[in-house]
Every structure is written in C-alpha cells, then in structure tokens.
C-alpha cells in the first residue's frame, strides 16, 4: 500500500495525529519508567555474585554476630576470604542525607567486591589511613566530596559518647561496574569502628553485622553454607548462611505488594491508551468510508484496505513509542541518581526499550483492527452511498 497515502492521511488531521501520538508518548514513557522501577527492585537479586555468600544471624537482621565467629568461619574448606560487614546507619548533617555506610575489613574488600574500580585516590592510601573512607562516585558528586576531605557522619545506631559525629577521611573513590552495587556507599575500617566502640562502650559492644565470604572457584556453595551453619548450631547466636542473591531477596520482598501495584498501574495505562488509539482509528475509519469505497471500486482488495489502516496506526503509534522511549532515556539518569540510596539499579534495559516499542506497535495493530476489519468487509456499493 502506498506509504504516501498513509502519510497524507496522517497529515490531513495534524492536531488529531499529534494528540494521539502524544498519548502514546506519555504512555510508553510511563510504562518504561514503571517497568524499569520493577526491574530495579529485583536487580540486586539478578546482579548478585554467585561466589559471594553471606553469614547473618538466623534470628534477626538486627542482631550482630560475635567477632569470635570470623576465625572459626575461616577454618571451613573452600573459602578464600571472610570479611566483616557492618551496617552503620548514619547520616550527614541532617537525617534527610541518608545513605549506606558499612564498616568493613578493608584489606580483602577489593578481592570480595571486584566490581569496584578505584578511579580517584588510591586503595593503598585507604588501607593506610586509620579513619580512611572509600566512597562511591555518585556519593562524591552528590555531596561534592573529594579525596582528602574529612567527612562527619552522625551515627544513629552507634552514636558517639560526646554526641558528636564520627569523622572519616575520603582516601579513594570507586566506580561500580555492577549497577546493583550502587555508587552511593561509604566504606570505612572495621578496626577503627571497633577501636571507638571499645573505648566508649566497652568490649562487650563489639560485633559484626554480617560476614561476607568469597568462595574458591569450583566450590559447591551449599556445602560451605551447611558447614558454616553447623558451626553455630547450638548458639550463642545461630546463623543462616545464604547466597548473596538470597540475602538481597529478603530486602526485595520487603517491597511487598509494590511491584504488583505498579504492574496494575501499567496495565491501566495500557488499557487507557489502547482505547485512545482505537478512538482515533475509528474516527479515521468513519470519515474515510467513501474514499475506501472508491478504492474498492477501483479494484483495491480487502487486504490493501486493511493494510492502509494497519500501517497508519503502526506508524502513528510506533512514532509515539520511539519518542516515549527517548523521553524515558532522558530521565533515566536523574531518576537513577534520585533513587540510588533506596533502590540502585534503575537502568533502562534494552529489554524494556524493546518492550516499550512492542507495546506501542501492538497498540497500533489492535487499534487498527477494528476499523480495518470493518473497512475490509465494507461492500463498495454501500461505502459509496455513505454520507460523511
């Protein structure tokens, strides 16, 4: 069928074409953002490393583990490194400025988290500095911190005895190759953490949040997990060793009904634009009854007439889809930065882009179907008689 004719039809009602295309733009944009959100919610599971295992208290996420566990875990076969990893839960100046901080065993951290790449400062400087901190790129940009800065962090779980802030020296900045391991994290020395706690609260306050281990290549994770769990079966704190994916899953499931809710919203959006597109194509079909009758009289078959509508709707909706995806791409970075503390991994995937376009084209196809079927069934004699 003549593309020129399709194009002319679209241009003959510029306002209607633009408004319809606009609805599709808006809808595809929204669908991409919603889907990206849902994907991001689960990205920490998808992107988890297979060779990292986490040892946590089997009682509660908030119960720390004794420091004495570390040497015992190290005895288990198949483990390359075990590091302490303690959630610090502080903020910078104001509770609004909340981001993740962890006290870690700095020496082996880079081995366990190879996705970190030091791009400013040096890892050795971080290791050598007692109050040193290693921070993510986004964090550095958000608060305009650079190497050499002293950063005050107020601890909500571990307040200083004098009511003041903990102070850390930024020694290195990392970029992350893994979108689910965000760049809004501050890591500092567990040794410094212990030193302060011991002095201010006594030795009984010392503990580690979780232990993260990297297992040797070829080791069966389930064997290691069972062996570690068995070590502390009778207390004092029973532990639960899981893969990193399982560990992350417990946070993801906390989103509860939110992914379902977002999917429902997406469904409604889809429904609404489908109706809008059908509306437009029906209008186009109605006003073209006579033209179609003439074309049929000329000998154009039902297939051509059908194709005319389908191509028109697909061009219109496809264009809307492309623009919608482009808008989604445009807001990707700002949203990703805004959400990164809460929900890293807000990345517009190729899959989402394709899904957005497929939805747009699919809506076009379905919307074209109604008038197209009507038109292809239209008997030319009746079409020619139609009043428009």
């Amino acid at each position, binding site marked *: 069928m003549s593309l020129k004719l399709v194009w002319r039809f679209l241009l003959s009602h510029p306002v209607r074409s633009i*408004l319809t295309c606009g609805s599709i733009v808006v809808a595809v944009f*929204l669908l991409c953002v919603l889907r990206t959100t849902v994907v991001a919610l689960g990205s920490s599971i998808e992107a988890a490393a297979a060779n990292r295992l986490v040892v946590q208290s089997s*009682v*509660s996420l908030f119960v720390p583990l004794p420091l004495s566990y570390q040497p015992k875990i190290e005895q288990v076969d198949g483990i390359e490194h075990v590091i302490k990893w303690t959630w610090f839960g502080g903020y910078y100046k104001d509770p609004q400025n909340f981001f993740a901080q962890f006290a870690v065993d700095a020496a082996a951290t880079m081995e366990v988290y190879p996705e970190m790449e030091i791009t400013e400062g040096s890892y050795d400087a971080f290791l050598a500095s007692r109050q040193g901190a290693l921070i993510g790129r986004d964090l550095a940009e958000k608060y305009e911190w650079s190497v050499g800065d002293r950063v005050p962090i107020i601890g909500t779980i571990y307040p200083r005895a004098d*009511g003041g802030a903990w102070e850390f020296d930024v020694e290195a900045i990392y970029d992350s190759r893994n979108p689910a391991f965000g760049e809004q994290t501050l890591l500092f020395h567990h040794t410094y953490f212990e030193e302060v706690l011991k002095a201010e609260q006594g030795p009984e306050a010392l503990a580690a949040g979780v232990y993260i281990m990297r297992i040797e290549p070829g080791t069966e994770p389930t064997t290691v997990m069972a062996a570690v769990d068995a070590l502390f079966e009778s207390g004092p704190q029973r532990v639960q060793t899981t893969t990193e994916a399982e560990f992350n899953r417990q946070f993801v499931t906390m989103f509860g009904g939110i992914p379902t809710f977002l999917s429902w919203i997406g469904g*409604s959006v889809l429904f609404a634009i489908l109706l809008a597109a059908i509306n437009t194509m029906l209008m186009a079909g109605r006003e073209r009854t006579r033209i179609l009758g003439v074309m049929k009289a000329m000998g154009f078959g039902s297939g051509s007439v059908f194709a005319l509508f389908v191509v028109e709707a697909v061009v219109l909706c496809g264009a809307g889809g492309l623009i919608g995806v482009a808008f989604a791409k445009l807001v990707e970075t700002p949203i990703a930065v805004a959400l990164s503390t809460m929900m890293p991994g807000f990345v517009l995937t190729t899959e989402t882009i394709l899904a957005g376009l497929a939805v747009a084209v699919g809506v076009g196809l379905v919307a074209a179907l109604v008038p197209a079927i009507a038109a292809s069934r239209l008997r030319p004699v009746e079409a020619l008689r139609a009043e428009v």
Partner: protein
Amino acid sequence: MALVPFKYTLRSLFVRRSATLLTVFGTGATVAVLAGVLSLNKGFEALFEAHGREDLVVFLRPGAQSEGESAFSDDRADILLKSLAEVATNASGAPLASAESFLAVRLRKTDGGETNVPIRGVQPATFAIRAGEIRIVEGRNFQPGSDEVIVGRPVSERIRDASVGDVLTLNTTPFRVVGIFEHDGPLDSEVWGDVERMRVALKRPVYNRVLAQLRPDAEVAALAARLEDDRQVPAKVQTEREYLRNQTGMLSGALQFLGFFLAVIMGTAAVFTGTNTMLSALASRVHEIGILLSTGFRPMAISLAFLLESLLLGLLGGVVGCLLALPLNGVETGTTNWQTFTEVAFAFRVTPDVLVRAVGFALILGLLGGTWPAVRAARLDPTDALRRR
C-alpha cells in the same frame, strides 16, 4: 444569552456512543489509578496516624529515628519509668510507664519465605496504658515472667506456628502462643511477650524505648525540651502520634509523589484523548452549528455547549473510574516500615474523600479536554459552516 438546549449535548454523546464510551473508559482507567493510589495512602494514614495517641509519649535515645535504633540501659530506663512528674499514675500510685524491647525477628511465613516480624517485649504497665486498645480475641493474655506470647491477628494468619497452642521458637528459646489480639492501629502486626524473657531469649542487653501515659495537664514540649539535654538520661520525647507520623513519613511521601506523578502523566494522555473526541464531534457537526448560528445562537453559547459536553464526558469518566476503584476497598496489602524493616499490613480505603477528589480530577480533565474544541467552535463562520457538509 440563549443557551443551546442541554438535550443537544446528551444526544451528541449518544449518537457518537463508540467515541463516548472509549473516552469515558480511557478517562475512567486514569481516574481509577489515581483513586487507587489515594486510597492506598488513606489506608496507610488510617493505620498509623489515626491511631497514634496524643496522651502517650515515646522516649527514644537522642538521634534515633525509630525504636529499632534506640536503646536505654537498665538504670536509665528505670529513671524514666519512675522519676518523671508528668507521668500519670494508676489507682495505687504506680506510674503508667513501661519499658519495652523491640526486635524485627526473621520468621517463616505460612506461604513459604521469611519475613521480619516485630517482637515486642512489654511490662504489665503497657496493658494498663493501652486498656481498651488491645483486645484479646482468642485464648488469654501471657503470664508475666513466663515463656508465653500473644500474637496480632494478621500475624497469626501469615506466620507459621503462630496460632494458639503453637510453639514459636525465638533464637533457641521456645515460646508458647497463648492468645491472639487485635488492635485498630499498627500494633497487631506484632508479637508480644514479657520484656525480661524476650531480652534473655534474644540476647538484648538494653531496653529499646519507654512508653508512658501523661497526666492531662502535662506539657509535652516542656518535657521534651528538658530531657533533650538531660545529663543523666538524655532522651528524645515525642507523642505517639508524632512518632508514628515520622515512621510513615517516607512511604506516605512516596505515595503522594506517585499519585501526583501519575495524575499529571496519565492526565495528559486523557486530556489528549478528550480533545480528540471533542474535535471529531465538532467536525461532524459543523453544518449543524451553522444552522444554530444562523438562527441566532451566539458563538459563546455554542462554545459553552461543547465545554459542557466535555465536562459531561469527564464526569462519566470519573464515575466509571470510581466504580473501577471501589472493589479495591478493603483489599489488604503489605509493605515495609523502612524505619524498622518490618512488615506492615494495611488495606486500601476508598473513602468519600477519595471519590470526591477522583471525580474532581475527572472534571478537570474534561475541562482541559474541551477548551480547545470550544474555542474552535466559537470561531466558526456561520456561512462557511452552512456550506460544509
């Protein structure tokens, strides 16, 4: 000014019923989404803010955002429990104050998987403070000092081994479930037991918060100011309502943002569709408008008729949207209190307020969608309009 008869508007909507229906349902879907988000937020607010009492105060360690982060050693808690003049007393003169422990404990759900359930250790005074609020609906209350617990009704349904007679093991200690309780606010998402037994079983060296009922004449602000810098027991003092509002602020804010974001984005699409429908209505009635103009109707009257028709479309969309959203009322859903990482169950609440706002939103969509077509209608030249068919 003579107005175009209302019948014309109704007839026009009926004659073009396929376009009318498509527009109404499209707008309806948009309105339903907004109503859904609003009613989710309503359910959330109803659970937290509506049940926070003004006469109760919560003491936390300074700097703590929630009781999970807060801690009071035994001697400090003792001072708060016994030495504050603002705290009300019972008939025998004992202060109505209770030290509580709080821990989000990993428990298995009945449908598989794990979730964090708040385990609260309470002193007997808690029940005096919350007399009438906590209702035991099955079994009995736990005996102070014993390894017994009572479980909130929703928790008993979702969590394994949490029915009366079951044994719930916390770390290594078995606790017997002896009762099920209800609370209209967030407390029935919790498991309660004796605070001292909980501290032993869960190895908690400290209390997490102190809860107290104030005398009617007590000044909360003054108490808060006094304790903020207290050398002996520095504490952050909030009324229970304030405390709960702070707990939900983040999620509530997120929901409000989501509602606003969706309303703007989906509303734009709905306005586009409405405009399209009305422009097509205009195009098919040019001749008729020519007749109306030539019989003496003012362009303004024609304009108003179009605006009215569009508003009516919006209204119908609003009604459809509300009807679509109504079945959500009472549907239970769960999310997490991010301050304590515990699960919170709550229900959508499609209140009259939500419906009014949804219909208002639909009318705004109708108004915006009708504006441009109405302007175009007013600009039609009567002789030209008569000629066009």
